[in-house]
Every structure is written in structure tokens, then in C-alpha cells.
């Protein structure tokens, strides 16, 4: 059974769902008391939406353009710092830059605009440095891309990883202290006051990414992912398109960095290391490489699991089970094992390369009862098939063993060792790149 809705119904449905979600987040943040465990849900939504944006931006590169880049944390770092540096209120500079005589930049965009335009200026003052952060990251990505994007897959990965590490050292450099505060945290900068802010900003940015992917450029990116040589033969300038994708992805990574800075309220370069990049990559993998919906789901699941649901595993009590082996660190082991299981057995992730659609969702819902009913049958059939396969394998093994024993016996009896190789008239040479 398939469900097909017309376009208008779908738009209305989507709009209603989004509006409801935003209202829930907005009032949730205001009304839920900090002492309630549901507050954690809001925190997870905040952080999850930020990670969703950076995961989507990484997916644009890895999943849609086929560029294996590991520089995301480095780009977030620049975004976070750029935003923070320009929004620290003037009278906090002495405290924040306590070792650097109040720093070099002694004003805040937010304050300047707020003085001139009031509340509107306040938000404008937040958006300008945020967009600025994205643009600066884009410029840096442009520069980094010139040498790096000519490299092949894994060299590209390791080179972008290297750049991220260099950036980190650079931002902690004492000589730049008057701007970056060296090794010390940046804080006191303007942050949002309701969780709906990051959700909304990430949502808009992800929508733009989706629009891009569905445009003619998105098609060109996907063709590069599927087959670089064929794409080039279709007149697509590889370098230019890779660069475009890299710059746009970095722009959004920069924005999400700025959002993360707001979420954390303090920023330090240390956590923006390879582990952070790996986490983002794992979110993309869990969700499905090549699915933006998947990245979003993955981001929320990842954040919720690691920051909330599995915390009990560290404290020794989880889902009513308590055991002495559940001590600090156990959560991360369980988590890593889960990720390995996904990578090995569900390598396509939750969504594969499919996206959410109302038709698909409703069809799935409608077929759910039937599928559940049919499940035991199917399972039985499957396990039977598996059993058969196992038996066949065992038989083949036994046969091979027998053959080997035979040949040993023949060898022992002095028969000629020469067995001609089967002559293949057509040798298929696979592509080494595994394209």
C-alpha cells in the first residue's frame, strides 16, 4: 500500500509540524524548571541541532560530493572564536583578557548595534558576527582548498585533519593572545536566551543545504561522488565544483561553530580536536552517508545517548540495573561498541541515502502492522535460508578438505604437480579505487 499526498497537503503538514516543534522548544525552555529531568531534553535539542548542522555540512562533503574531509572541527573552531571575539561586551574585556591587558578589540558589535537600534540591533549584532564567522571560515577553506582539494581521498582526509590541528595550535599561540586570549577561555560574550534560537538557525541553514543538494549543482556534486572520471567527461569542472562544495560546507561548519560557542558560553580551542571531528563523522555514519535526514536523526540520537541516556552507565545504575562494572568510562565503551556494530552491520546507517518524505513515512506507518504480522514468517524463512547457507558452506568446506586430502595423497603417490590454470579469455580488471 502506498500513500501519495498532494503537494499542498505535504507543505501544510510540514509547516504545522515545524511550527509545533518550535513552539514546544520555545515554551519548553521557558517553562520547564531547571531541576526537572525534562530540562535535559531541551539541552539535548539545543546541542543536537547544532551538531545536526555540522553533520549536515560534513555530509554535503562526504556524502554528496565524495570528498573525505576531516577538517570540520577546525572550521568550527574558527567560527566559534570569530563569533566570540566580536561580541564580548566592552566592560568585560579586562576580565576576559586578564593576561593581555583587555585584548586588542575593545568593543562588541552587539553593544554598538543595540545602542543604535535597540532589540533589533541586539539580534542583528548576533547575526552579523555569526555570518561573518561563516564567511571567514569560507575564505580560509578557499585558501586551504587550493592545495588540498587536488589530493585523492585518504590523502585529503589526513591533510584536512592536519590543517585542523595546525589551526588549533595557531589559535592557542600566545603571541595572538590579545585577540584569541591564547590558551585561556573566551567567555562573557553574547549568547542566545532561548533554545529556539539554535534550532531555528540550524533549521534554516540545513534547509539551504537541502536546497543546494536538490539544485543542478547538487546533481553535479553527486555525479562527482559517483564517478569523478565520468563527471569530468560530462564537462564538470572537478576542482571548481569540489571547491564550491568545500567552501559551502565550511561556511556552515563556521556557523555551527558560532552556535556551539553560544551554547557553551565559554570557548577554548582544546576540545576542537580530532576526537570532535570523529564524533561528527560518526553522527554522519549513524544517520547514513548521503542522507541529510539521517544526519539530523543521528545528531539527536548521538547527543541524547552520549549526554543523557547512557550517563547512568557511568554512575553504576541504569534502567534499574546496577552493577559494579558500570563505573566511569563504561558509557563510552558501550557507546563505541554500538557504533562499531552500526558500522559493520548497518553500514548504510539509519536512513541509508534516503530522505524523509511524507509519502514514505505514511506508507511505512500504514504497512507497519502488516509488516509486524508478517515478521515471524519472514524471520523463519530468513533463518531457514541462513541455515541452508551454513550447511552449504560446511559441505563446501568438507569437500575442499577432501580435495586437499586427495591431492596430498596424489602428491604423496608421486603424481605430477602440474595442473594447468583455467584459461580466462576475458580478464576483468577491477578498479583499484573501488569506484
Amino acid at each position, binding site marked *: 500500500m502506498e500513500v501519495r499526498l498532494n503537494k499542498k497537503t505535504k507543505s501544510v503538514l510540514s509547516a504545522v509540524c515545524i511550527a509545533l516543534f518550535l513552539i514546544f522548544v520555545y515554551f519548553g525552555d521557558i517553562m520547564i524548571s*531547571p*531541576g*526537572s*529531568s*525534562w*530540562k*535535559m*531534553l531541551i*539541552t539535548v535539542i539545543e*546541542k543536537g541541532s547544532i551538531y545536526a548542522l555540522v553533520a549536515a555540512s560534513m555530509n554535503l562533503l562526504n556524502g554528496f560530493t565524495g570528498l573525505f574531509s576531516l577538517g570540520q572541527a577546525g572550521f568550527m573552531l574558527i567560527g566559534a572564536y570569530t563569533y566570540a571575539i566580536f561580541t564580548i561586551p566592552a566592560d*568585560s574585556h579586562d*576580565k576576559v583578557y*586578564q*593576561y593581555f591587558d583587555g585584548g586588542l578589540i575593545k568593543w562588541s558589535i552587539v553593544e554598538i548595534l543595540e545602542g543604535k537600534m535597540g532589540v533589533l540591533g541586539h539580534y542583528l549584532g548576533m547575526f552579523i558576527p555569526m555570518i561573518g564567522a561563516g564567511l571567514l571560515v569560507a575564505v580560509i577553506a578557499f585558501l586551504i582548498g587550493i592545495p588540498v582539494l587536488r589530493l585523492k581521498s585518504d590523502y585529503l582526509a589526513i591533510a584536512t585533519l592536519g590543517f585542523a590541528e595546525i589551526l*588549533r*595550535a595557531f589559535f*592557542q599561540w*600566545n603571541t595572538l593572545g590579545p585577540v584569541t586570549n*591564547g*590558551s*585561556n*577561555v573566551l*567567555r*562573557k560574550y553574547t549568547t542566545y536566551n532561548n533554545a529556539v534560537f539554535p534550532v531555528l538557525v540550524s533549521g534554516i541553514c540545513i534547509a539551504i543545504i537541502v536546497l543546494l543538494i536538490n539544485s543542478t549543482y547538487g546533481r553535479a556534486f553527486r555525479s562527482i561522488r559517483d564517478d569523478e572520471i565520468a563527471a569530468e567527461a560530462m564537462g564538470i569542472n572537478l576542482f571548481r565544483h569540489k571547491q564550491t562544495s568545500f567552501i559551502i560546507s565550511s561556511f556552515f561548519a563556521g556557523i555551527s561553530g558560532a552556535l*556551539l560557542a553560544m*551554547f*557553551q*558560553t*565559554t*570557548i*577554548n*580551542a*582544546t*576540545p576542537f*580536536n580530532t576526537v*570532535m571531528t570523529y564524533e561528527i563523522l560518526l553522527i554522519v555514519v549513524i544517520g547514513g552517508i548521503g542522507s541529510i535526514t539521517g544526519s539530523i536523526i543521528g545528531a539527536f*540520537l548521538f547527543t*541524547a545517548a552520549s*549526554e*543523557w*541516556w547512557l*550517563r547512568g552507565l*557511568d*554512575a553504576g545504575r541504569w*534502567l*534499574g540495573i546496577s552493577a*559494579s562494572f558500570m*563505573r*566511569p*568510562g563504561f558509557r*563510552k565503551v558501550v557507546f563505541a561498541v554500538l557504533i562499531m556494530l552500526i558500522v559493520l*552491520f*548497518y553500514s548504510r546507517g*539509519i536512513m*541509508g541515502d534516503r530522505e524523509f518524505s511524507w509519502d514514505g513515512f505514511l506508507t511505512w506507518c500504514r504497512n507497519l502492522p502488516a*509488516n509486524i504480522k508478517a*515478521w515471524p514468517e*519472514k524471520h523463519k524463512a*530468513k533463518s531457514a535460508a541462513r541455515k541452508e547457507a551454513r550447511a552449504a558452506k560446511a559441505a563446501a568446506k568438507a569437500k575442499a578438505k577432501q580435495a586437499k586430502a586427495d591431492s596430498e595423497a596424489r602428491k604423496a603417490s608421486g603424481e605430477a604437480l602440474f595442473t594447468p590454470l583455467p584459461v580466462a579469455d576475458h580478464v576483468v580488471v577491477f578498479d583499484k579505487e573501488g569506484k
Partner: protein
Amino acid sequence: MKKFIALTLSLLLVLTFCAGCGGGGGSSSGGDVIKIGVFEPASGDNGAGGKQETLGIQYANKMQPTVTIGDKEYNVELAIVDNESDNSKAVTAAQNLVSQNVSIVLGSYGSGVSIAAADVFADANVPAIGVTCTNPQVTADCEQYFRICFLDPFQGTVLANYAYENGMRKAYCLSKLGDDYSVGLVNYFVEAFKNLGGEVVEEQFPDKNSDFTSYVANAKKAGCDVFFSPVSTEAAALIIDQAEAQSLGMPILAGDTWDSNVITSAAKGKNVEIVVTTFYQEGGNPDFDEGIKAWFEEDADAMTNNGGNTDLAAVTAMGYDAYFVALEALKAAGSTDPADVLGALPSLEVSGLVCGDVSFNETGDANKTEAFVKKCNTETGAWEFLKKQSAE
């Protein structure tokens, strides 16, 4: 099919967790239980120190598991979260504590995570007591943050004074890139040392570095009189090792982090001279010393968390004190409501603690005027008390 199973499973998971978390949080906040949050690193760079500090709190909780507030007796439950020594994880970890409805929070070891979490505590109006985070920024702009230890400007000056008084004129200062504790303390030390007329060479090492050969060589090359490196214990052990290998030939000076059995066991049997400033001198309160050592002996987990032996770290004693300060605050507030506890803290005066009496000044810092100076006896692998040093 596989996908379908996976989806249902994850859906189920989500539901159980939501239900579990929601229900669990609600039920435990009632009754006669009061929660104290422990915001400490159990992993990452400061994992070792964080665990030792937590041990002090746990031991105190074991000794005094109840508190009478008003007329009612409450069982004290510790809600421990791992902030992973990571500023970005600290925020959610702190939020996690707040959402468990804790009345007061203790911690953290390491100033960076405390600074990062300060806003969460401020938003929720939950009071926090820093145990050994010495960076002035922790309490400076946060009304909710108090602390029971001395501050870096004080400690830096004390160390500089000690160095200068003992005839050291040129100091090699090594801090860790991106670590606000060591960078901050070095900064204050340098300031004070230069004021006294000393000379300094400053260097920083990057994250995850384990090769300190060149730093030791640099100190020797510069002809320094003292090697000042108030870094985490992880790096400390490696520095001591290299100092021995290259015959450093000058004393190593460090702050409170080095007052740990990690250092003594690393230095044992080696030809190095290590001097630290700290909060507590073993033997200052024999009852406490014996009690906690006995606990280490009987509880294998506690022993492991203490680094495998019963040597006592200053941060453990501080953790112990912090717990009692929290209890006093609860009693003074006469309520389990975080806001009331916060109101009671500024005027609180607690005596009878193992590391000296505690009262808070207007920024919320403890009024402390002296630090203990200790030296490592490399033959016995134990700390020897040298003197009390003030900032004057």
C-alpha cells in the same frame, strides 16, 4: 527488514529512556533524600586529580551520610557526573546535575570546566563550591560559585616568593597549551617573580605531548635556577622522568596539582628535587588521615581511584572539607532549595575542617592567607613539610 527491526528497537529505546529518566528524576527528589552534585572529571587530562577529589567527597559522605535540616533528617545522596576535563562536555554534564535537582554542587578539579559550567549553575540558580579550582575567573563573575581554596594570584606569588627567597633568580616556566590552569598560574608567577627582580623563560607544550626531552634541555640550555611547571599530573610524571634522565640539576617547582601520589611515586628513587605549594599537610589531622587510609585499604575501587596506594593527596582532603562546608550550608539554609542554600553561603563560617577554617569574601572566595610548602623526599617517596608561606 533489518532496518525495520533497528528502527523499532531504537524507538523502544527512546521511549524507555524518556520514561526512565522522567520518572526516576521525579521520584528521588521527594522523600528524605537530598542530592549533592559532584561535578568532577573522571577521565581526560585531569581524570586522576578529579577522582582523588571525588574520593574525599565520597569518604566524607560515608562518614556523615545524613544531615538534619530544620527538624528533618535527610539522607545525602551524591550525584556524580564526569565532565571529561573537557569544556564542551562540561556544559551538558552540569546541566545533567541541575536536572537531577541537586541542592548544591561541588567541584571541579581544573578551572576551565568550572568556568564553562558557571553559567549553567547561574541560570538554574544552583550554588556551586569549587574545591580546588584556583583560577580567579571561576568566582569572579558568578554569584553562584564559591570556593574553599586559595587563588592563583596568591599561589603564584607564594611560589615566586619561595623561589626568590631561596636564591633562585632565573626561572624556566612551562605551561600546557590550552590549559587555563597552568597558563594562568605561570602568568601570576612570572608577574610576581619579575617584580622581585627575577628573570624568566616561558614555554608551552602542546596537547597530548609526551616527549619532554627538549623542554628539559631548553631549561638547561637557558641556564635557569628553577624549573616551574604547574601542569597536570600526567605530564608531571613524564617531566620528572626526563629531568632524571638528563640530570636537570635544578629544583622543580609546582603548584597544588603536583601534591599527589602520582608525583611521589614517579619521583621515588630518582635524583630530582621537587617543591610544591598545597592546601593540606598530611598529619595535620591524624584522625582523618588514618580513617581515610583505612577506607582505601578496605575498598578496592577507592584504592584504584587513588592511584593504587594509600598516599593521601591534598585534593582528597579538600574534597572532604567541601562536603562538610556543603552540609553546613544546608543546615544554615534550613531548606533543600538551591536558592535558600545560595542565600546562606556568603555568611557561612565553618571551622573544624582538616585544611583550616573556611569563610567567604565578597567574591565568594575563601579567605586564605597561607599555603603549605612541601618537598618530595625521593628516598621514601613521601612529602615532607617545609614551611608555611604567605604572599607577603
